[in-house]
């Protein structure tokens, strides 16, 4: 659905994207993760044709694919940029209608799609209000509605939950899942690992303009997450006396502990499996990024 081949982009002496290649398959939800300055936004900009790569190419669509510089290819794209791209003085309905018209929709089809998009993001009752009166979460949802009103086969979401409250975040994640369930291919960038873990079938972790890991969540955890941590608490002992064992085979380790000679003293056992965040930190380090 989306193929990035050996993309390179530099701004002066700073190389933002350095020989990046990846393929996003039709119908999957693909996560693009990375610390600040990793090159995610530049990659997204090149993927939708906002930026021309210095070298390499972007191909969208089935078969050989075509460049996003072709307007007919962009007809199949939906983009929800990280910064809200809305007209504050227009109502929610007017915003979505405007962007839908630019996608070539008109007449009854236009009205139907606009109404459906607004209902999908839960803004139907407030569709006549001007966007400037919306809360942060409502604006995020409106931003999404404008991206998916024309039902694009490829949807690119750039940190769609940035700055919203937990309720809106859950709503947006549900929404993305429902869109993906209809067969839409989604490319999702985020800083929130739990979102990627919940939504994405595969993720790519970028740093310094390159992809440093790519695969399913399980594959990445297995390859880079390290072992699970088994914590055993015993009667009468302080918390500092808890036993912590790192293992790649938690079942065998648990069996060993539970059948051991001191099994009667066990008050509780906790097993912490590695997650995407530990993978991310393992791969990109704990150094602060600007």
């Amino acid at each position: 659905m989306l193929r990035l081949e050996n993309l390179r982009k530099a701004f002066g002496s700073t190389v933002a994207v350095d020989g990046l290649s990846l393929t996003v398959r039709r119908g999957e939800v693909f996560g693009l993760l990375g610390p600040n300055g990793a090159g995610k936004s530049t990659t997204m900009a090149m993927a939708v044709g906002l930026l021309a790569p210095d070298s390499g190419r972007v191909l969208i669509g089935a078969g050989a694919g075509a460049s996003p510089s072709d307007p007919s290819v962009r007809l199949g794209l939906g983009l929800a940029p990280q910064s809200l791209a809305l007209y504050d003085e227009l109502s929610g309905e007017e915003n979505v209608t405007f962007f839908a018209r630019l996608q070539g929709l008109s007449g009854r089809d236009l009205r139907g799609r606009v109404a459906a998009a607004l209902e999908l993001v839960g803004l139907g009752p407030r569709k006549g209000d001007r966007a400037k009166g919306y809360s942060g979460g409502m604006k995020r949802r409106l931003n999404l509605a404008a991206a998916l009103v024309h039902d694009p086969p490829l949807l690119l979401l750039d940190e769609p939950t940035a700055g919203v409250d937990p309720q809106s975040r859950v709503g947006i994640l549900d929404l993305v899942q429902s869109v993906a369930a209809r067969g839409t291919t989604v490319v999702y960038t985020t800083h929130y690992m739990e979102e990627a873990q919940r939504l994405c079938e595969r993720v790519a972790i970028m740093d310094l303009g390159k992809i440093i890991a790519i695969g399913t969540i399980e594959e990445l955890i297995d390859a880079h997450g390290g072992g699970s941590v088994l914590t055993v608490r015993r009667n009468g002992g302080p918390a500092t006396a808890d036993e912590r064992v790192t293992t790649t085979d938690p079942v065998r380790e648990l069996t060993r502990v539970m059948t051991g000679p001191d099994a009667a003293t066990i008050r509780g056992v906790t097993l912490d499996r590695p997650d995407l965040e530990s993978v991310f930190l393992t791969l990109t380090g704990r150094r602060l990024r600007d």
Partner: protein
Amino acid sequence: MLSAAWTIATKDLKLLLRDPAAAFFTLVFPLGVAILFGSIFGGRGEQRQDLALAVWLGERTDAAERMARALESAKGLAVSRAESRAAGEEAVRKGRATALVVIPEGFGRAADLLFFRGAMRLEAVVDPARGAEAGLITGKLNELAFKQIASGITDPARSRALLAEARGQLATARFSDPLMGPTLGRLFDALDAVNAQTERAGAADGDVKGAGGGFSFQPVEVTVTELERRGSAGPRSGFELSFPQGVVWGLMGCAMGFAVSIASERAAGTLVRLTVAPLRRGTILLGKAMACFMACAIVQALLLTMGVLVFGVGVSSWPLMLAAVVCSSLAFVGVATLLAGLSPTEQGAGGMARAILIVLAMIGGGSVPMMFLPPWMQTASSISPFKWALLSFEGATFREYSAADMALPCGVLLAFGIGGWLVGVRGLTRQRAF
């Protein structure tokens, strides 16, 4: 392509109308300017503004009084008597009068001794800010004083009194040329004979004063004729001058608004979405241009409608007016695009647009009518598209241009439009605006 451009254009117009400040400065402010300046220039033109003068008599003589009355009855002057010279000067200082005319002590004596003393002296104290009127006042005073002299010679009674006074002076006068005394005596005798003849002619006409049918002394006569109008040409009112100025301010508001439009879209993030939409870059620019064109045309149409229906502005040719509106609108589409191409940021584009457009509007006749600008600035104003927009609008109203006359301003406006568009698009491309 056109459908998408139209969608962008109507969205931009909707945004313009929903921004109270932008709508005010684009639609309401120009109308206010037109009405205000029209009222200052004399409203509907039924009454003209007379030149306000204060007059102070430094002596109470018949000659001084006659001169004051002549000033008071002169057409085009609004004369008030000052109680003192200081009071008259204060009136000038406060702007209540353009000048103070002082009829000094000795004026009457000089008038009586027409042939022996120096000139009849008059003094005009002029507001330094009204230098243009000083010459006008000098000419008017010369004219009225000369009429005083002429009436002294042609009125037999006054002439006889003057001659009696002159003969008395002649008896005691010493001349370097011994022939001068006898010569003046013969002149006085001749004038006595003229007076007698005038009185006889006047009596035959039934005019006891005798001035009507006989001698008159008016060596120069200046006739002032207003330029004959072509049909109803010439500004019939101040509003025919001020509404084109209103158009200038309206066009400025439009150009300013649309010059920052692309930068505003970029700042709001919406330009990203426009760019990702299945449109060619040219379609986005065309949409912006259409919005600017429509806003310019709407402002002009609004001002024209108000001018014609409410303020009596006359349109000499509707087709030429249409050409003026279209060409002006196209010119300012170019100007707005040019300004948009100068800076990628909203603040930069807005600041530059304001600075450049205000200067161009001022030298183009937007704040001060062209006729009041110094000659060099009138020449320099040709670089301002506002001048040509104003000229085309006036051409289709009181100047009553023919199609050939209208070709020049319209041609220049189109050149501004095309040139501005090309340079602006180049600038936007360089900015990587899209």
